[in-house]
């Protein structure tokens, strides 16, 4: 079933991609193929391969349980929040929270969670910002 659904989604993607690809227009003629030919070729090929999945699907893969989904969802949310606040609160604080959170997700107890969070963020900040001269955001709230 998974492969059939995947095949269906890929087929839809192929159709959308090909249709969009065939509509590119350039104002001047530079080469015989133009911007549309290659995308149309790719879209057609993808559509054909997706049919194989629809008609000859593999056995069902193993999907993780609801618990995994929740942990992955929370982790992704954390990664996105990290991107949103990075420049505002600065590298050290945001990384400390992110690394601590990830290590707790992977099963660290409180001691290791705090240790890894502080250790990794502070060490990497000084290694890259100070030693290797790769500027990292200090944080707008600190006037950085």
């Amino acid at each position: 079933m998974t492969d059939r659904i995947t095949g269906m989604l890929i087929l839809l993607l192929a159709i959308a991609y090909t249709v969009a690809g065939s509509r590119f227009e350039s104002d001047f003629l530079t080469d015989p193929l133009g911007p549309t030919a290659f995308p149309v070729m790719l879209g057609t090929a993808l559509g054909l391969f997706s049919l194989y999945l629809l008609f000859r699907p593999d056995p069902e893969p193993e999907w993780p349980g609801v618990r995994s989904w929740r942990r992955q969802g929370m982790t992704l949310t954390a990664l996105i929040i990290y991107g949103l606040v990075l420049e505002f609160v600065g590298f050290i604080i945001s990384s400390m929270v992110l690394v601590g959170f990830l290590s707790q997700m992977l099963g660290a107890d409180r001691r290791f969670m705090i240790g890894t969070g502080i250790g990794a963020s502070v060490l990497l900040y000084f290694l890259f910002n100070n030693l290797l001269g790769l500027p990292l955001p200090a944080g707008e709230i600190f006037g950085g």
Partner: protein
Amino acid sequence: MEFLAGFAHGFEVALTPLNLGLAVFGAFAGTLVGALPGLGPANGVAILVPLAFTLGLPPESALILLAAVYYGAMYGGRISSIMLNIPGDEPAVMTLLEGNPMARQGKAGAALAISAVSSFIGATLATIGLSFLAPLLVKFAILFGPAEYFILFVLAFSLIGTLTGKNVAKTFIASVLGLMLATIGLDPATNVPRYTFGQMKLFEGLDPIIAIVGLFAISEVLVFLETSRAGGQVKFKVERTYATFKELWFCTGAMLRGSVIGFICGVLPGAGASLGSFASYTLEKRYSDRGTFGKGDERGLAAPEAGNNSAAGGALVPMLALGVPGSGTTAVLLALLISLNITPGPLLFTERPEVAWGLIASLYMANIVLLVLNLPLVNIFVRLLTVPTYILMPTVTLICFLGVYAISHSVFDIFMMVGVGVFGYLLRKVHIPLVPVILGVLLGHHMEVNLRRALSLSSGDWGILFGSNLAITLWVLVFLSLTLPFLIRAIRRRPGGGKGEV
């Protein structure tokens, strides 16, 4: 002789203190990455690519660092195979078959030493092969016009499709998805924006480095959250860190056979180290098994280790000479070259000899460093294997974010990386391989440009794709690569036709 001059120049580059230091550091980091279960050579190199790029290293130094990591990871994979019975990376799966039984019999130290020497022999022979074959291939590559290059890319993708992965259709889907990702951005010839959804940020296209880190590293974190393996438990004591002369002599034949087979597998575009170690082990088993294989036969350990390290060197041949990577990890190295505005291919050896020859010379150096690291110092790596996942993975994730952010100081890139990572995770779940996606992202631009250039030359006549003997030969190879594996499989399935799976 230009060859010797190139070599001499290469060693001049490789022996500068900076480059030598980078090779030593890379060898150490690579062995560690290879040894840690879950982090393979492609991931390891992918994590370090943004760093090498943003540190502003000269191109040859950046490449030397990453190539040392690459070789090191191939050495390191065997350590966890032998000690934990978990392969450190994909090519090390075969090492496990004989290495772990040996460790259980109390011969862990001998297994580590034999495999280290085999790795050294395989990698050194492959580097010698690379030094001779790459310049030869370059002379041949001058015959390639745009049409031939386009067909060569087609050949690379058809070889990947049939040599790797279980489901050919899925491998092709992966390649096409990668090629499609490469069409995002301004069209190179007409400057028409394609698939940018009006986002200015996408006009420059998807940065291959972001694609690589997202696909490999971020998706790996998501996989880890499912299994949440704890750190491994080392049960075996390493009693000695050397191999006796008798043991090595016993394995010499296996090492040499493994090296040759591995090198050939490596040179084939798209096949890489996994096939190298698989083929070496299978053939060694056919050749010298007297009922001892699977129970800790030293030769069954030496052959795949020589094979996978030799394949790693072989995979650099098409990457340097033709710009078509031979494996996932060389694809990542290719991404670095492209980001540094260096075009690999026939002109690399004449226009940027310091890059081509400097890299080759530093591989010889890296091998010697790796032998030293992996014989007397192997206990350090064995101890590092027990670092728990919850310290390792968060730190690796942070390094990825740091590297990607540092490229352009843009938060948009971080979101793109996370997005690509989720995409990569979903592909992995439905067993669509990631390496062809990366190859597609990397080669898509060149493939399209060469096709359009060829058709411009012929004013739109598709016949140019069959216009030379070389082009026709390449098409024949494409045809063979698509049909031969199925024929062989069909013959094997016939009763009595073969011994079946290993």
